[in-house]
């Protein structure tokens, strides 16, 4: 860290013009772990202050979405659900999708939404998007518990669902979604410091992307010629695997999952590098 030419006691910190591209300083993030957890806790506590139902909203949101999907796509449009109970089918899809969507949209506002904070004090900037992942993970866990309750209820009533060993993959699937959401999110966030347009794109882009992911339909219902396109979407194998694990119907292939995993690693690394580069001077352009 210190320059060679200076006297023995090393400098603790050297501030230079822009660092090199691959100098991402993840150690600073680790040192800021208390801060990360406080951000998580702040997000959790502050959102539902002065609401009557409080954290119950975490359950109401997915329930209403699932009900709407069940009626619109299941009853009205009569889309295939791979022979699964429509309610569970849509619930699994929205559960997974909403975690990814929340990670992506919220981390994409990292720079734009924290100008006042970032302009006044330095801390590991990545602490903000990482805390977003974790606080959404709490939401996800609550909704996941609700989903499990429904799975138990449906199987007690003898519905044709077959949870299997793939459920053990759930943590990996969640990790992949978090990585993808974070990676895309911080890339967008870095670019929006200069181009505001992208923040508009994210809002409806995520909505559109949901239709390019088998959330409201199974992969098996997609015509052969579109299937390659669908599988190019790194979220596709994640959603399908999750549904297969808990409900027992869907298309699961290890190469597809590996593809998603590698995709996640690439996006996440690229995101981290770009983010670390932009964070040094974004205050001048934002």
């Amino acid at each position, binding site marked *: 860290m210190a320059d060679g030419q200076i006297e023995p006691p090393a400098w*603790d*910190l050297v501030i230079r*013009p822009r660092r090199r591209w691959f100098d991402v300083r993840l150690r600073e993030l680790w040192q800021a772990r208390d801060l990360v957890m406080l951000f998580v806790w*702040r997000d959790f506590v502050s959102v539902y202050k002065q609401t009557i139902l409080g954290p119950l909203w975490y359950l109401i949101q997915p329930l209403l979405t699932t009900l709407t999907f069940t009626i619109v796509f299941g009853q009205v449009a009569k889309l295939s659900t791979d022979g699964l109970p429509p309610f569970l089918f849509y619930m699994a899809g929205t559960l997974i999708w909403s975690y990814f969507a929340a990670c992506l949209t919220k981390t994409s506002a990292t720079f734009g939404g924290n100008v006042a904070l970032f302009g*006044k*004090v330095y801390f590991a900037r990545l602490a903000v998007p990482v805390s977003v992942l974790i606080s959404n993970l709490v939401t996800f866990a609550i909704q996941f518990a609700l989903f499990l309750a429904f799975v138990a209820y449906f199987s007690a009533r003898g519905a044709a669902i077959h949870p299997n060993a793939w459920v053990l993959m759930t943590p990996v699937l969640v990790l992949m979604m978090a990585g993808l959401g974070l990676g895309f999110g911080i890339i967008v966030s870095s670019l929006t410091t200069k181009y505001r347009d992208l923040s508009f794109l994210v809002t409806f882009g995520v909505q559109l992307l949901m239709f390019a992911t088998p959330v409201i339909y199974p992969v098996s219902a997609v015509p052969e010629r579109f299937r390659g396109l669908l599988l190019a979407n790194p979220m596709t194998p994640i959603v399908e695997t999750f549904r297969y694990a808990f409900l027992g119907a869907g298309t699961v292939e290890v190469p597809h999952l590996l593809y998603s995993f590698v995709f996640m690693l690439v996006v996440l690394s690229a995101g981290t590098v770009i983010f670390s580069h932009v964070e*040094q001077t974004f205050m001048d352009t934002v």
Partner: protein
Amino acid sequence: MSDTVIQVERLSKRYRLGTIGTGTLSHDLNRWWARVRGRPDPAAKIGQGRKADDEDFVWALRDVSFEVNRGEVLGIIGRNGAGKSTLLKILSRVTAPTAGEVRIRGRIASLLEVGTGFHPELTGRENIFLNGAILGMNKAEILRKFDEIVAFSEVEKFIDTPVKRYSSGMYVRLAFAVAAHLEPEILIVDEVLAVGDAEFQKKCLGKMGEAAGRGRTVLFVSHNMHAISELCTRVILMEGGRIVSPSSPDSSGPPAGRRHLAAV
């Protein structure tokens, strides 16, 4: 002599004037398309050449060099636009310099504003933890100093009330109390002492003087000449992005500070 804790070497910061990337992607694409066709830049000012020339930029800092020794309280004064805030921003790592280098020894904390990161919905207690962590304390440290912070802020009664219900005075007192209990080796302070009533300001000044007395190094930017002359052992005068008064640490001592002040 060797006890230098901050070494600033030929530090410069350049800001671009006017449009930065013009804000939207379509504008930049337009400019790029115009350049491809060899047409003039549609975003350029009339009479401006194709290449960005020097007039597009402003140097907020130019070749600033100085050193600070352990235990010094260095005052930085100058008119608006002299580059003081830019210097503090670079030292606190909010933005990177354009050229030059700063070397720092020891833990550094900067206070460019009080109450950074306060969340209006959270209570005073909750905000102490949040703000403390943002300023660089870890949880154990905050826990240890919690009672002291509350006592200093004089808002004991309201500590479990959301800070959005605080009066502005209470808000600022709580915020400063957190900041005052940071224990960095180097503290950078920007005009934050202009908060609270006269009584509380005095208390803040006292707290800073105390910090300096215990071997901490303080960098202090202020327009408050009284505070500067009271606290600082040395003063740097800035003008137009440069240091205009001597900046070597040897000619120090309060008299030197007072002399420069008299010159302002």
